[in-house]
């Protein structure tokens, strides 16, 4: 038994020696064999379980060595455009505040190189008809699901949304096929109910959405809403024209492809949409279902923008509520633990991952995600003191 153990240890240390042989390469003359030899006393010592028979360390300095550290700053040629959501009375609208997004000059939270000007903004999803939502989301809106205006109000007052993201899903011909005119009335109601900036979304029907968004743009004249969204295969000109005529901005959506995003952005700029009226949604994959594609996509887009690519210098919208598409978020499962925590956490982690990759504006469903995004971005923007003593974490945790 003892013999066996020693053999194992000897083997482990020999492997270690071999590894060091590969690592210690600055000293070209120290090869594996020599190191193995070198370690023999150590093996003997270790098998006895005590004492240091290793050669003494080469140098034991009396004090810590000196070291200088300089910030590894880089220089950026480009900057992301700033987009304003919502218009106050002074600006011709009726919003109580405007929300500024974008304007980044350095990569997300590389604050040692400079502070980016705007905090991330959080929009909460409101729908124009009751729909199937995961229980953990639904329970917060049970009382308002029949009334979009009340839903928006609740999101603003109780859940502290910065922006309302109002989605006209009932216009889908496969659902209620609500007419663009009727849908526009609902937009009017929501704008009356809350004084926050508003995003208006369609149903995802490529033929009908441009007409729905055009009508919404009309009734929201002057409110500087964000029309969500256009893509390469929709009538984007119609939406851009409506945005220009009524003073709104537009979301350009592409499914996970930086080149298609560039192409769409170029098309929109070419038909006259000003750079400061364009927000891009390059797709947010849910945690566990492609989020890594979104991470790399957003990072590439933002770095390209900072390097000076004018076709990618737009603020980024992230539909973090896509997280609810992952079964790990909504599925009832004893093994995975209570979904009441797991669900909102799934959305929170999806949102934060996108935040760190460059997203500027979020669409979320759960109130907890709003709190998390605000809490973390407070810290990341250097707001608030830290009274935590982490130096002694080893003993401080229960």
């Amino acid at each position, binding site marked *: 038994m003892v013999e066996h153990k020693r053999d194992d240890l000897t083997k*482990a240390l020999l492997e270690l020696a071999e590894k060091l042989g590969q690592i210690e390469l600055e000293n070209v003359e120290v090869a594996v064999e020599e190191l193995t030899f070198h370690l023999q006393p150590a093996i003997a010592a270790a098998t006895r379980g005590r004492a*240091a028979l290793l050669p003494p360390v080469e140098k034991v300095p009396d004090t810590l060595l000196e070291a200088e550290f300089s910030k590894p700053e880089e220089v950026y040629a480009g900057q992301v455009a700033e987009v304003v959501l919502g218009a106050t009375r002074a600006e011709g609208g009726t919003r109580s505040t405007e929300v500024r997004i974008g304007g980044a000059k350095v990569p997300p939270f590389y604050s040692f190189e400079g502070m980016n000007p705007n905090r991330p903004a959080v929009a909460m999803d409101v729908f124009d008809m009751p729909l199937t939502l995961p229980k953990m989301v639904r329970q917060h809106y049970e009382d308002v699901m029949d009334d979009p205006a009340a839903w928006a109000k609740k999101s603003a007052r109780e859940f502290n949304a910065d922006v309302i993201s109002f989605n006209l899903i009932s216009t889908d011909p496969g659902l209620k096929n609500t007419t663009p005119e009727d849908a526009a009335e609902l937009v009017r109601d929501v704008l009356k109910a809350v004084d926050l900036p508003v995003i208006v979304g369609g149903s995802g029907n490529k033929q009908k959405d441009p007409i729905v968004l055009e009508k919404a743009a009309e009734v929201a004249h002057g409110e500087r809403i964000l029309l969500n969204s256009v893509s390469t295969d929709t009538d984007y000109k119609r939406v851009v024209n409506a945005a220009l005529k009524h003073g709104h901005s537009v979301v350009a959506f592409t499914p996970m492809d930086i080149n298609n995003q560039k192409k769409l952005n170029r098309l929109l700029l070419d038909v006259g949409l000003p750079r400061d009226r364009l927000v891009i949604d390059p797709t947010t994959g849910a945690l*566990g279902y492609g989020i890594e594609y979104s991470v790399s996509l957003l990072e590439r887009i933002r770095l390209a923008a900072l390097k000076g690519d004018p076709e990618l210098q737009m603020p980024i919208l992230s539909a973090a509520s896509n997280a609810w598409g992952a079964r790990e978020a909504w599925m009832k499962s004893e093994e995975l633990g209570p979904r009441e925590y797991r669900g909102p956490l799934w959305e929170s982690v999806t949102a934060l991952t996108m935040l760190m990759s460059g997203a500027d504006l979020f669409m979320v469903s759960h109130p907890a995600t709003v709190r998390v995004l605000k809490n973390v971005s407070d810290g990341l923007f250097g707001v608030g003191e830290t009274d*935590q003593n*982490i130096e002694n*974490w*080893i003993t401080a945790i229960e």
Partner: protein
Amino acid sequence: MTEKATLLTVYRLLPQTNCGECGEVNCMTFASSLLERKKTVKDCPPLVKDVKYRVQAVKLAEHIAPPVREVVLGTGDRVVKIGGKQVMYRHDLTYHNPTAIAVDVSDRLGDQEIVDRVNRAERFQFAHIGEVLRLDAIAVRAASGDPQRFAQVASLVAKATSLPLVLCSLDPGALRLAVEQKGVYERRPMLYAATDENWKDVAALAKQYSCPVVAFSPNDLAGLKALAKTLKTMGNEEIVLDPGFWTSGKLLKSSIENLEMLRRSAIHRGDKDLAYPIIAVPAVAWIGESTEPTTSAYKESYLASLLLTRFADMVIMHSLDFWALLPVVTLRQGIYTDPRKPVAVETGLKAFGNPNESSPVLLTTNFALTYYTVANDVEAAGVTCHLLVLNTEGLAVESSLAGGQFNAAGVRDLVKSTDVESKTKHRKLVIPGMAARLKGEIEDLTKWEVVVGPRDSSEIKGYLDKYWSAKVQ
């Protein structure tokens, strides 16, 4: 700073004989594999065997070593490698060595509680996209203040698990006592931590037992660099950096900046004194602020995720709640997949619900994201069906149609090889809406009727409800 490794600089250090013993076509392709880290220097037999290449081999190994050193934790089967990073962004190459997740164990707990906790950590597993996600290490905390107890617990934990160990104490005496337990030093526990006060003793201890050692210098990168430099001078190679982590307020901002500056110093500036893996402790979410365990676990989980996006090569966590660890291991899996490789799932025939011979037969690709989206939608909607998974070499529907991997002959072969005809009495195949143009060709080759389904898998349920029963009649 050393010269940046390129195809040519690497090629120059190879034998250039194109002997092919490595399995590559020639030395140039081997050079390319070395750069992509698909092969190592050892895979070139002449370099290893032939004495005349010896100096060259050593130079080459140094030349292609990643800017961030790799540190090996533990021994035996459950060895965990951390660091070894080559790039700032995963799209630049790929991230190597997934962030190791350690779970803490306090020496204030009773022996049974300790063993239970260790067992829970060791048993934690979650199967996702063809991989089993696990935890990687146990961090033993000297919380009691009693070095004897700490040593006892270190020994107990070492017996209870084969996972790598981290011994956490700032008291060098306690660390020594714990390391020198029989059954502990053999495991090469990582020592946490050397500080500007205890560095002399901790560095000597780490050197003596060849243990990886953490340099801990909260919010002071110059101090951290001095510490790492000193540990190195004293003969320690496997160093890990902890610049400190705070969960909120101004110091959260500094914490994230420090991580970014460390990694950029190593990778872009070639700062050898900071070219080590980084460890961070999201477990600090459990200090002070909140006493409600759910809140702390929730916070710790999203902060650990935040750290994963900011170069943490290892984290120490406190929560063992499945729901709190799940997002962290899932995010880690995603971020550490190789962006150069399309992710593919197994091809063939899958069953959802308990399909019978009149259940619908759907077709999708083996691109993991497509497949799991379809599977997810089908499951969520409670659809009962057969799903044929076509080998499109891991490409999505649209790109594989464009690239030709999604073709009628492939569908015919799939229908044959899966023997789906014996499982269904109808001959109707629902194909993705985007693949509509293959309808005729697939019909010709399979003699099945092809039905063009929805473009988005979220509409499968609605589509089948509307059309399927009518079709089958």
